[in-house]
């Protein structure tokens, strides 16, 4: 899978190559860190017999906040852990990274991602909520930002409310779009004047000039310059919606990245020094993670959905027909934001995934206690099952949010549509079709720490409800951001490590889309296993089955859905394909799409226990002895 021809399609940061300490082929060690909000995670990679591999990790608390206020300390501590575990001396007496590697000391290349201090926080603005403001939102998200608010002329809020919001938000940066080139000027200036009047302050302090990227109608540039240049650090780039039918977010994304480095990172404690250490620009962690997910799509040439289920946020990435979109649900997560999952999903939606009786009040207290002590881990099976229930809802909501961003360009005219149809057209839904998603890749503590891999597979399946034939991946060790940033300079090295040491193939899920009555036949699956044995089974509605098929093996399959069901070839039509194995194997899911759980509580718990048992997700007897 590491063919150089494929890797060449990846955009490589040539600047980084120029700064190499030694020729690429002579490099032996690469160090990458991710400076997270709470933990700094260092990963060491080494070339072994010509093959780049992951060696090990070192982690330490991030030291960006008081009383330390120097991110370097956490980085050094994480590196020291690697030094202790490997015996490889990486830091000099002065505490700097030794480069290049020579005489058994140092590394040849170092780069980093960062989300410390809340990452990159932005406010975006545009003229029309569903057009330029939405494009600005996508551009900021794609650059790895958390979007605090999207302001638009038509966003249904009165001006004073928008002004009040702008005065209270303290972003790192503002992205202002609006108008097509040659289009409206008045409306663009209306939103610009509103921002100027609100005089928003930067998160870094009132003394600091807030960066503002203007990516709107080119005709308004002189007026924007006159209005904004005193109050803001202004950067003017190409319009991100030069025409209604075109979205060009790349210039805005690049400007955001440069301003992030020059005006945000360089003011954060310890970062000016860290920026000197790194051989590549520091990327926001979600941007690194997004690059890693894109790497999967590029290498496998498939539509991919990736998800990072964190403690505070859930990032969803999609590459669908070549289009990359990222969404971040800033308050959906498994620890800091666990109560917000409960709030947004509703307690009943969490309860529906729990296979034992529990009072709502007790469940609420359990989740609130996790929120206030976010670093605690499940000690009992009961608490593990509760967390898996919450994860299903966090992921479901994260994907739902993603679909509101991964939409067709609203306002774009097609051959069959007139201007008058725009409103109707703007109501069209997402372009993401689960039937056309071939790979789902998950990362984040809950998924990677799941005691049995099958648990991660079913959590992802229940939440995302893949249709047809879908491969499921997850990472072994948290290093997607690391490999993403590394891929900027060395895509082949990054993919080699990704493929061999990071991605765990959980297996393949075969899920016919459609609905029936409980017990009615849904699909007939026939698989020719690698040892020649034929597996054949007809599944009825409500059933799920697991078929062991090891990682790196595959089976020829004939999947014949019953009338009304579709596995990718059309309703009732057979699909012949090759399914790939994984640590869990192949899971045939005949529970229907959309997945419907029994309404009766006892029936629902019984179904959950049956599914968990069939896939051997939890220790035997989990439902009887430990939980009652």
């Amino acid at each position, binding site marked *: 899978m590491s063919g150089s021809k494929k890797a060449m399609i990846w955009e490589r940061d040539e600047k980084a190559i120029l700064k190499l300490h030694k020729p690429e082929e002579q490099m032996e060690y690469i160090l990458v860190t991710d400076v997270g909000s709470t933990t700094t995670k260092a990963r060491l990679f080494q070339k072994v017999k010509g093959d780049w591999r992951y060696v090990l990790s070192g982690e330490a608390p991030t030291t960006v906040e008081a009383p330390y206020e120097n991110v370097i300390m956490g980085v050094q501590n994480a590196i020291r852990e690697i030094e202790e575990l490997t015996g490889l001396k990486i830091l000099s007496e002065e505490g700097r990274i030794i480069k290049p590697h020579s005489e058994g000391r140092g590394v040849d290349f170092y780069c980093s991602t960062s989300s410390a201090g809340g990452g990159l926080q932005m406010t975006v603005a545009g003229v029309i909520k569903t057009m330029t403001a939405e494009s600005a939102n996508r551009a900021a998200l794609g650059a790895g930002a958390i979007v605090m608010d999207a302001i638009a002329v038509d966003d249904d809020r009165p001006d004073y409310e928008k002004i009040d919001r702008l005065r209270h938000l303290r972003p790192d940066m503002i992205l202002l779009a609006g108008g097509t080139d040659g289009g409206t000027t008045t409306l663009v200036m209306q939103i610009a004047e509103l921002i100027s009047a609100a005089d928003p302050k930067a998160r870094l302090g009132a003394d600091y000039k807030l960066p503002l990227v203007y990516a709107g109608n080119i005709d308004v540039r002189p007026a924007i310059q006159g209005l904004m240049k005193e109050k803001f650090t202004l950067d003017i780039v190409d319009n991100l919606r030069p025409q209604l039918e075109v979205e060009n977010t790349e210039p805005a994304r690049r400007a955001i990245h440069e301003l992030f480095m020059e005006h945000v990172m360089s003011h954060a404690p310890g970062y000016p020094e860290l920026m000197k250490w790194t051989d590549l620009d520091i990327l926001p962690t979600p941007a690194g993670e997004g690059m890693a997910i894109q790497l999967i799509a590029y290498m496998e040439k498939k539509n991919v959905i990736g998800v990072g289920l964190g403690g505070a946020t859930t990032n969803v990435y999609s590459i669908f027909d070549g289009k990359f979109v990222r969404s971040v649900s800033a308050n959906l997560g498994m620890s800091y934001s666990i109560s*917000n999952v409960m709030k947004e999903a509703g307690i009943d939606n969490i309860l529906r995934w729990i296979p034992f009786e529990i009072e709502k009040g007790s469940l609420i207290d359990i989740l609130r206690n996790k929120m206030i002590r976010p670093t605690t881990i499940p000690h009992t099976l009961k608490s593990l099952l509760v967390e898996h229930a919450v994860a299903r809802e966090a992921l479901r909501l994260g994907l739902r949010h993603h679909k509101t961003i991964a939409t067709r360009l609203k306002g774009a005219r097609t051959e069959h549509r007139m201007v008058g149809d725009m409103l109707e057209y703007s109501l069209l839904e997402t372009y993401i079709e689960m039937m056309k998603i071939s790979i789902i890749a998950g990362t984040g503590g809950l998924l990677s720490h799941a005691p049995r891999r099958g648990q991660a597979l079913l959590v992802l399946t229940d939440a995302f409800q893949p249709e047809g034939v879908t491969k499921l991946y997850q990472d072994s060790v948290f290093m997607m951001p690391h490999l993403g940033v590394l891929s900027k300079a060395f895509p082949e090295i990054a993919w080699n490590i990704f493929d061999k040491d990071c991605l765990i193939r959980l297996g393949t899920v075969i899920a016919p889309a459609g609905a029936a009555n409980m017990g009615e036949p849904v699909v007939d699956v026939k698989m020719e296993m690698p040892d020649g044995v034929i597996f054949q089974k007809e599944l009825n509605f409500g059933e799920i089955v697991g078929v062991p098929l090891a990682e790196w093996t595959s089976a020829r399959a004939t999947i014949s859905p019953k009338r009304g069901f579709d596995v990718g070839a059309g309703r009732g039509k057979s699909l012949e394909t090759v399914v790939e194995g994984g640590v869990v194997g192949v899971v045939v899911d005949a529970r229907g799409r959309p997945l419907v759980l029994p309404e009766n509580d006892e029936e629902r718990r019984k179904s959950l226990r049956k599914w968990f048992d069939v896939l051997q997700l939890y220790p035997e007897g989990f439902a009887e002895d430990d939980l009652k």
Partner: protein
Amino acid sequence: MKDMANTKEKDDLAEEAYAYTPGLKVKRNMIVSKSRSLPIPGEVLCEKGAKVSFDTIVARTNILGIPNIIKAADILNVEGDVLPAFLVKKVGDPVKEGDIIAKYAPFFGLIKRFVRSPVEGVIETISDITGFIVVREPPTPIEVKAYISGTVSEVLPGRGITVETQAALIQGIFGIGGETHGILLTVVGSADEILSEEKILPEHKGKIVVGGSLVTLGAFRKAMDLGVAGIIVGAIRGLDLTECLGYELGVAITGDEAIKTTLIVTEGFGRIGMSARTFNLLKDLEGYEASINGTTQIRAGVIRPEIIIAHQKGALRSEDEKLTGGMRPGTPVRIIHEPYFGRIGVVESLPANLQEIQTESPVRVLTVKLEEGIVIVPRANVEIIEE
């Protein structure tokens, strides 16, 4: 002695960060310093060495007034670029509410249209592109109070001060409501007792009431009705918190709630007895003036709610000065996750190898000696009780 975190050299701090994550502070006697600063530069009203009380105003400034956008061209029914021709005021002019800023009288004055200022303020901008006029309201004054009684130890010119005082400091785990102060009063007999409605009395108005394991919804509502300044208690039920607030809290970022009574819980949600150490300390300091703040932020840059009770009770004791040096056998800990939630014990051993727990996860564990015996707990599920 100063708070350790503020006095140690940064190199040592890096080492400390590497070694452990501290628990919540329950300190009987220490020098507490609080930084009191303005959000934007302004005037500092105290000098170094000055004695301040919790309600002394120590700094003040003015925040830029609210801008009001007037869609003037729309009101006059003219294009934006001709708006200047109809102005009767210019940029920089002060205006009162109702003052005419622009007028248009076509057809020999048969039709008259006026643009009036909706507020008192100053005309900041007039746009001949959009036809918008911005009137900026007068600046809003803001003041910062000392919050704790003590001595000004540092002055940051134009920014604020640092107040220092000898006090007991207790950190809660979660709170709602902002800064307040009042006389400390314990109204329950033990740390396990429920703070129920009948225990809240009219004479508790303006006081900080200490309860036991749980504050009921009725008790908290009554406290708010009677004007109780604050409640410190072991826990509250999650459902009751929603009732108190009137909305469901999603993320633990609090302090700005519009409630009359600040609430600080020391243990968590459900019914959990307040730790004996915290309860006894609060009881011991009954009658003292306490400054409390429910502000909580559980994310990077963690802020826990705090109770600061300035007192001169006894000299600094040597055991109060020691640093928590990480977890070791004998360290007092609180278990912070099921199935032993809220239990207090001491570390018995810290096995080096990973151990499989009921979930089948291999994790780092420790053994904790509780009253009824020794239990195995993931290390992530205990917190050090800082002495």
